[in-house]
């Protein structure tokens, strides 16, 4: 490895609105190394990638390639300089052939016409390099995501590449395909290409990467050598400790005669997201769900609340087998779901706060039985008051509220239905510290009042503080269920970060 970085970012800063998505981040990539970028949702990983590939402009800071400063005005500029990215969402054209996708933009010509034969040959060569034996003339869309991803990589290396960014390249690959990909990566490494490998699979990161950079809340936490950096320290660096004052929730100790669970799920399986999951949800209890990004925690939530159709498994509510066949059906059974994508699956931004809060209740009553406007207002105001939603103006469009208050509006909508079971997926994500604590306390109070809550969060400390019991999810399976009083943040971190004992070789 040479001592001079091939790509260097100094003091990189990017704003989204008033928030710093990237805050004075320093980042270095050496030629011939495989480097990992780690951090939870919202840490700034994708922002950093977009900054170095020219998809976003830097508000401050400088980007240097081989020592000289560069100004990237578009992804095209970056591509010309040899900086290529392969994203998890395939950025290719599904309706044209594999060869064409690889060569688009630099097609071989003969007499001014496109030389299809030559294109197929060239494509075949680079595909063979990747160990991929597919027909270059076949339509891209007919191949699995795994193959498409490899084709995207083929495109990236088709012409001279210096920096290759791979964003979650292995999420749709099985063990063999992974091994093949790693072989290619090592091959590129030999050729002096700098590779940025972004993945949430810790094993893979430790297997293939030389160094790792950790981001949290848009800031650089540190840069480490993988051979010197313990797994548990890595997870610790990613998740951190929040520095707010804690008002410890007095955990209600459950009575000795264990109550019958309100909802009991056995062997839940949905696609490759979640497999053979067993969960019990008891009234008056908060069940925390801990696991890294991609572990299946969202899939578990959606399976339990009936948003996704079960491939296998049984859900029993108060002893009766139920088949929950969509949100309406779930709501009628007393189960409500709050998605982690507050903006796209939660808040209806152009409707007012009042309309958002009363939406689900109104939908349940049907079109004809309108809730009287005075009653609507009363309801909205009482929830605004109860949850301390600010500003307390129920006629504002909900989209103008801060993240924290939007989450409270969503909670109000769900609570207005008088549910029995609340499934909350990352309700405190992207919320400022003060609002976070408010929401956490609120959840505790709800459970104290007899509700059953399933609480998912990436912040393990939060999970412990709010949850009575914790379910640990890894790679689509529930690894363990432990009372939170038996756990500390460190021990939970260890469980979440533990190398997967179950074989990944099972078909995904």
């Amino acid at each position: 490895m040479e001592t001079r970085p091939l790509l260097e970012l100094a003091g990189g800063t990017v704003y989204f609105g008033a928030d710093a998505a990237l805050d004075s981040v320093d980042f270095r990539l050496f030629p011939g190394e495989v480097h990992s970028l780690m951090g939870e949702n919202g840490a700034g990983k994708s922002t950093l990638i977009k900054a170095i590939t020219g998809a976003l402009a830097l508000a401050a800071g400088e980007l240097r390639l081989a020592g000289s400063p560069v100004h990237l005005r578009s992804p095209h500029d970056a591509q010309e300089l040899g900086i290529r990215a392969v994203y998890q969402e395939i950025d290719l054209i599904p309706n044209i052939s594999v060869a064409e996708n690889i060569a688009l933009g630099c097609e071989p010509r003969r007499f001014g016409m496109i030389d299809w034969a030559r294109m197929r040959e060239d494509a075949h060569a680079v595909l063979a390099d990747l160990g991929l034996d597919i027909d270059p003339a076949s339509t891209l869309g007919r191949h699995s995501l795994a193959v498409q991803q490899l084709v995207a990589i083929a495109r990236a290396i088709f012409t001279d590449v210096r920096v290759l960014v791979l964003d979650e390249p292995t999420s749709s690959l099985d063990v063999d395909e992974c091994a093949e990909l790693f072989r290619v990566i090592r091959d590129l490494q030999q050729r002096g290409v700098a590779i940025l490998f972004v993945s949430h699979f810790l094993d893979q990161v430790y297997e293939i990467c030389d160094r790792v950079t950790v981001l949290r809340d848009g800031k650089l936490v540190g840069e480490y050598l993988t051979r010197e950096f313990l797994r548990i320290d890595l997870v610790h660096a990613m998740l951190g400790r929040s520095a707010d004052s804690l008002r410890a929730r007095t955990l209600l100790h459950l009575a000795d005669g264990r109550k019958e669970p309100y909802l009991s799920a056995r062997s839940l399986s949905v696609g490759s997201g979640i497999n053979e999951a067993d969960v019990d949800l008891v009234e008056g209890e908060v069940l925390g769900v801990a696991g890294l990004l991609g572990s299946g925690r969202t899939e578990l939530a959606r399976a339990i609340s009936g948003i996704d159709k079960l491939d296998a498994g049984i859900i029993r509510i108060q002893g009766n087998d139920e088949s929950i066949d969509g949100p309406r059906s779930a709501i009628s059974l007393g189960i409500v779901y709050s998605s982690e994508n507050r903006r796209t699956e939660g808040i209806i931004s152009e409707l007012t706060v009042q309309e958002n809060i009363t939406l689900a209740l109104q939908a349940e009553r049907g079109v004809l039985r309108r809730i009287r406007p005075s009653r609507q207002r009363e309801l909205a105001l009482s929830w605004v008051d109860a949850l301390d939603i600010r500003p307390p103006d129920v006629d504002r469009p909900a989209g103008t509220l801060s993240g924290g208050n939007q989450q409270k509006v969503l909670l109000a909508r769900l609570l207005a239905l008088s549910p029995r079971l609340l499934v909350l997926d990352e309700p405190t994500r992207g919320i400022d510290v003060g609002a976070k604590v408010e929401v956490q306390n609120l959840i505790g109070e709800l459970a104290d009042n007899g509700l059953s809550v399933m609480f998912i969060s990436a912040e393990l400390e939060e999970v412990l503080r709010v949850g009575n019991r914790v379910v640990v999810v890894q790679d689509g399976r529930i690894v363990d269920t432990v009372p939170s009083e038996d756990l500390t943040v460190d021990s939970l971190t260890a469980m979440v970060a533990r190398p997967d004992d179950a074989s990944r070789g099972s078909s995904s």
Partner: protein
Amino acid sequence: MSTDVATPSRRVTLGRAARTFLDRRASLMPTLAAFVIFVVLLAGAEIHFGNFVTPLNMSALLLDNAYLLILAVGMTFVIVTGGIDLSVGSVMAFTGVLCAHLLAAGHSAAVVVPVIILGGAAIGLLIGVLVQYFDVQPFIASLAGLFLARGLAYVVSLSSIRVENESILWLQTTRYRLGEWYITPTGIMALLIAAIGAFVMQYTRFGRTIYAIGGNEQSARLMGLDVARTKVLVYVISGVCAGLAGLVLTAYSGAGYPRNGIGTELDVIAAVVIGGTLLTGGTGYVLGSVIGVFVFGTIKTVISFQGAEQSWTRIIVGLMLLLFIGVQRIIVFRSERRR
């Protein structure tokens, strides 16, 4: 080390050749289906009427629908990018009546023809600019074009204008014969335009960019393709085709008539869709649109042979359109399922 990933078990039963074909040219299936339908229609008509498939009738098929063919080529370009052009019928009427008017005023065909082509191109350019640079939905932008062209057609003349110009009439009246088959210059024009269109779509970067835009515009941009220019150009091409169609229609009917082409855009869209082009963009062949036009023309001829109302044509075409879209949806649905 092979990473030949699993193909759905459903197709394992087909021959390997068939599988390769499907992998490569699945988007050709709807076009093949259209061709089969065309053949079936002809066969059915022949059986029913007895003297349907004759060289005379088949030659007339091209003659009568030459204008539609030209329009369909232009429309294919637009639809494959995921857009739509509702103005073509009106632009055709406008350029047609303008042509007749200018000829009647004494100008030579050598001047008039380029002028009307430019006229069509200008309206197409307007639509393209609105769509690309002002983010106007193609539907609305081409609607404005429709209004504009239709109004302009009436501004040129409120009633029909006869064409006496020899060179224009020559386009239609001359027949090149081969046995009982014949073809007119307008027919040759139409086929030539179709051939050029097909070539451009398959063998030029411009054509491939069109497919890319229809497949995933964002990706196409990220891949460095000149999306903006291409999107504007397809509407210009559609406008040029409409101009040429106006010329052909005027030659065919011997007059320019401002009420021409009302509803023609729908016929064109139907022909293109029946020919296998998806309205959502990204797939489609000029060849398919040609077949679609012939299917449309055959239905029209069958109905006139039957002595039934011409209005049946539109109904049947409408139902066929529905059928095709339904089938297209199922195909798309199935291929999405596979992933």
